[in-house]
C-alpha cells in the first residue's frame, strides 16, 4: 500500500498533513493514537525543512511518501533543501531537572522515540529522511 502528499515549504502546509494521515490510517487499519504520534514525528521533520532548509524566497516541494508492507510502515521525506542529517543531532539529557533542561532538541528526540528507525541519505542534492515503524499489523 502506498500513499503520498506534496507540501510546499510554508508552515500553513502542515495543516494538510493530519487529514492525509487520518485517511491512510483508516484505510490501512492503523490505530488513531499511533497516527497522532506519527503526525508529531512528521511535523517535526517537515517544520525543520521549512525553517532551515532554504535561503531563497522561492517555493519548494517537500514530498512525503508512506508505504505499508508486511506490517512495516515507512515514511520517506524528500526535499531539495540544505543538507541536513537529523540523525546526527545529540539527544537531550532527560535526567536533568526540568528547569535546567534546554528547550531545543526535543523534536528530534521524539522522532527517534516514535519510530523504530531513522535513516538519512543525501542523493543527487536531495535529502531523504526515512522513518520506519513496525506496526505489527
Amino acid at each position, binding site marked *: 500500500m502506498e500513499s503520498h502528499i506534496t507540501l510546499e515549504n510554508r508552515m500553513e502546509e502542515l495543516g494538510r498533513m493530519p487529514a492525509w494521515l487520518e485517511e491512510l490510517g483508516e484505510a490501512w487499519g492503523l490505530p488513531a493514537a499511533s497516527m*497522532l*504520534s506519527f503526525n508529531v514525528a512528521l*511535523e517535526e521533520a517537515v517544520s525543520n525543512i521549512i525553517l532551515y532548509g532554504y535561503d531563497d524566497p522561492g517555493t519548494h516541494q517537500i514530498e512525503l511518501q508512506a508505504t505499508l508492507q508486511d506490517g512495516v510502515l515507512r515514511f520517506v521525506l524528500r526535499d531539495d533543501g540544505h543538507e541536513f542529517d537529523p540523525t546526527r543531532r545529540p539527544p537531550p539529557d532527560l535526567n536533568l531537572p526540568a*528547569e535546567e533542561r534546554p*528547550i531545543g532538541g526535543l*523534536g528530534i528526540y*521524539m522522532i527517534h522515540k*516514535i519510530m523504530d528507525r531513522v535513516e538519512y541519505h543525501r542523493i543527487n542534492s536531495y535529502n531523504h529522511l526515512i522513518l520506519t515503524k513496525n506496526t505489527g499489523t
Partner: protein
Amino acid sequence: MTTQVDFSNGYAIVSVEGRVDTTNYLDFEKSLTEVMDAGHKKIVIDCSGMNYISSSGLRVFLITHKRMLAAGGSLTLCSLQPGIAEIFEISGLFSIFTMVPDRAALS
C-alpha cells in the same frame, strides 16, 4: 486552536481547544504569558479539548512550567486525552508536570 481563561478557587484556568502545533504554538504561548504577566501564581491548563500537540507545543508547556517554578507558583495540567498523555510520555516530560484527571480534582 482556541484558548479561554476562567478563574475559580484561586486558580487561573486556561482551557485549550483543538490542535497545538508549529503553526500556532506562539499564540498559545502568548495566552499563557498574559496570564503569567497578570501575576497569577496558580495556573491550570485544562487540556480536555486539546486533540493534538507537537514538540513546539510541548515547549510552551515546558517554558510555562519553568517560569512558574521561578516565580514560586505552580502549573497543573488537567483532563488530558489518552493520546495526548501518550505524546507527553514519549517526550519524557510527563513526570515533570503535576497532572490531575479533571477540574474536580483540583485542591
